[in-house]
């Protein structure tokens, strides 16, 4: 088991190097002088320009520059935002909980609906329910979620006035961040009862929007994994033992079908962050996705560089954890390595 973990961990090192290379070259490939790029549009006086060139090592050979960059990254120094002058890492850490809160709600939403829908569709293969689930999930998979968000706002916020249009919580409330997750902070650390309800209401539409594509993928994957497993020899054995249909499906089949589904859920993390960029933009959700898009328009390249690197590391880590979880639920891997 330890060897299995070590092998998997060592496998991500090249990917890590690749991501750092990408972000390293990002700032150097942008047309123009990198220091001026970093300084932004306000410009910079020649003395300070020279100082910064030295500090970042732009006068040294490219490999040395990369070495300096890696050393800085490993010390947690991702340089400062051109606009706010705040360290990029600090800004990221302040905004990241909002993105996580949204992403976790979205994936839970996707699982709670997607798993049962996929299982039922497989069990009732070729029924109307099956065709319905497959049709809807393909539409969800094809959904331009930036439009989906607007349509939901149009329906629920404008037409029925049920949900708020944007933000994380009503401006009436100010919640001092404790955990950074508003649902938790407002429930446990705020006296005001309305705060939690407001936070919850603000979460509903973004959760649906961000959860739509993962929901579709999970439903489809669960169905096909179940269909494959239901055709296996050991399911015939389970039937020959006289087990009930429910036990065969919920225990013997599902346990095996979950193995590929867990992998797919892990891969959805990348999809979630892609969706978060769009969802946060639509709903003015103060997370890292919106932050990155704003950085582009403000030409705040250090933020873009640091943000991409950090998100890349997060996705990589989650993929690694999923890989390890895969080993845990699959006895064949657990024992053979």
């Amino acid at each position, binding site marked *: 088991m330890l060897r299995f973990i070590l092998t998997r961990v060592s496998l991500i090192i*090249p*990917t890590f190097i*690749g*991501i750092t290379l*990408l972000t390293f070259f*990002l700032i150097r*490939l*942008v*047309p123009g002088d990198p220091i001026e790029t970093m300084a932004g549009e306000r410009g910079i006086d020649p003395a300070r320009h020279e100082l910064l060139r030295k500090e970042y090592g732009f006068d040294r050979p490219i490999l040395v520059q990369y070495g300096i960059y890696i050393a800085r990254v490993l010390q947690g120094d991702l340089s400062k935002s051109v606009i706010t002058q705040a360290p990029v890492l600090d800004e990221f850490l302040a905004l990241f909980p909002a993105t996580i809160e949204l992403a976790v709600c979205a994936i839970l939403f996707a699982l709670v609906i997607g798993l049962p829908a996929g299982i039922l569709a497989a069990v009732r293969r070729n029924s109307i329910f099956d065709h319905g689930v497959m*049709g809807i999930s*393909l*539409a969800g*998979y*094809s*959904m*331009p979620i*930036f*439009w*989906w968000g*607007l*349509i939901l*706002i*149009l329906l629920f916020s*404008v037409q029925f006035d049920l949900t708020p249009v944007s933000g994380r919580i009503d401006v009436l409330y100010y919640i001092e961040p404790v955990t950074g997750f508003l649902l938790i902070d407002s429930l446990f650390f705020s006296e005001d009862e309305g705060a939690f309800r407001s936070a919850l209401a603000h979460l509903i539409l973004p959760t649906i929007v961000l959860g739509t594509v993962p929901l579709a993928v999970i439903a489809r994957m669960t169905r096909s994994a179940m269909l494959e497993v239901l*055709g296996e*020899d050991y399911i*015939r054995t389970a039937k020959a033992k006289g087990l009930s249909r429910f036990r065969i499906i919920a225990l013997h089949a599902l346990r095996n079908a979950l193995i590929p589904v867990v992998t797919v859920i892990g891969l959805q993390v*990348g*999809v*979630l*962050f*892609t969706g978060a*960029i*769009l969802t946060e*933009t*639509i709903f003015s959700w103060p997370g890292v996705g919106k932050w*990155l*898009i704003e950085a*582009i*328009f403000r030409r705040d*390249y250090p933020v*873009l560089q640091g943000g*991409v690197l950090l*998100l*890349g590391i997060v*996705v*990589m880590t989650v*993929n690694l954890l999923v890989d390890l979880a895969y080993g845990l639920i699959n006895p064949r891997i657990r024992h053979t390595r």
Partner: protein
Amino acid sequence: MTAETMDAPAVAAPTATPPHPLREFWGYFSANHGAVAGLVVIVAVVLVALLADVLAPHSPYLTDTTIALKPPFWQEGGSFTYPLGTDPIGRDILSRLIYGARLSLLIGIMVVAISIMVGTVLGLVSGFFRGIIEIFIMRLMDVILTLPSLLLAIVIVAILGPGLMNSMLAVALIIMPHYVRLARAAVISETSKDYVTAARVSGAGTLRLMFREVLPNCTAPLIVQASLGISTAILDAAALGFLGLGAQPPSPEWGTMLADAREFVLRAWWVVTFPGLAILITVLAFNLLGDGLRDAFDPKLKR
């Protein structure tokens, strides 16, 4: 045992003969109603794109503030002159959608063409030469796959600058790993087969082997992946347009139209609804087609 059950003989109609492969392919494909519907929609979108000059009632660029934000014809204040209404600066939405079909199809096809060409070559090369080249290419693809796709596209557009061409290049790059992996896997499984050995023994060069012998044998998965790739390309390019990083106004690209319309969501539902619907229907059609093709190429999977 299952195989035996299925292979078991005996049929009611003794006169039946096995159908021709192409016919059988069409049989499987046409049995899938969704796939046929997808194909019909795609043909319709292609026709609309080709005949845009004839079909569009107005110019997609002509602005007229006197008729700004007219609703569709079935709502009060709407008229058949502007069947789907007008946008905030008085352009006919239907005409813009019709010309937008051209852009979306162009984006989808160009992106996938670039991606397939470069991706297949990289895949074939890494599959044939193995070693350090393969490790380098495949690791690079892993990095592309690890990063959230839109994030990578945004980074590329940030480097190259916003615009339709640059967003197409960015999307081409993020869907490339699929083709590289496909081509490489095909090469590795095919090169171990007898017919490649036979070609090699008879003196075929590596290049000839790559393109004449191996490539034709991985066309089926490539076609399926291409169909699915077009839908991803249209969707991602529209997302970039929506974020203001893709096609720039006044281009009638569907995503860009949505970006323009965003602030009017509270006042004029039609400027928001129709461009997105166009994206959804087109993307759905390509996904349906891709699914149908995959099932038809591999009927065993379908059962």
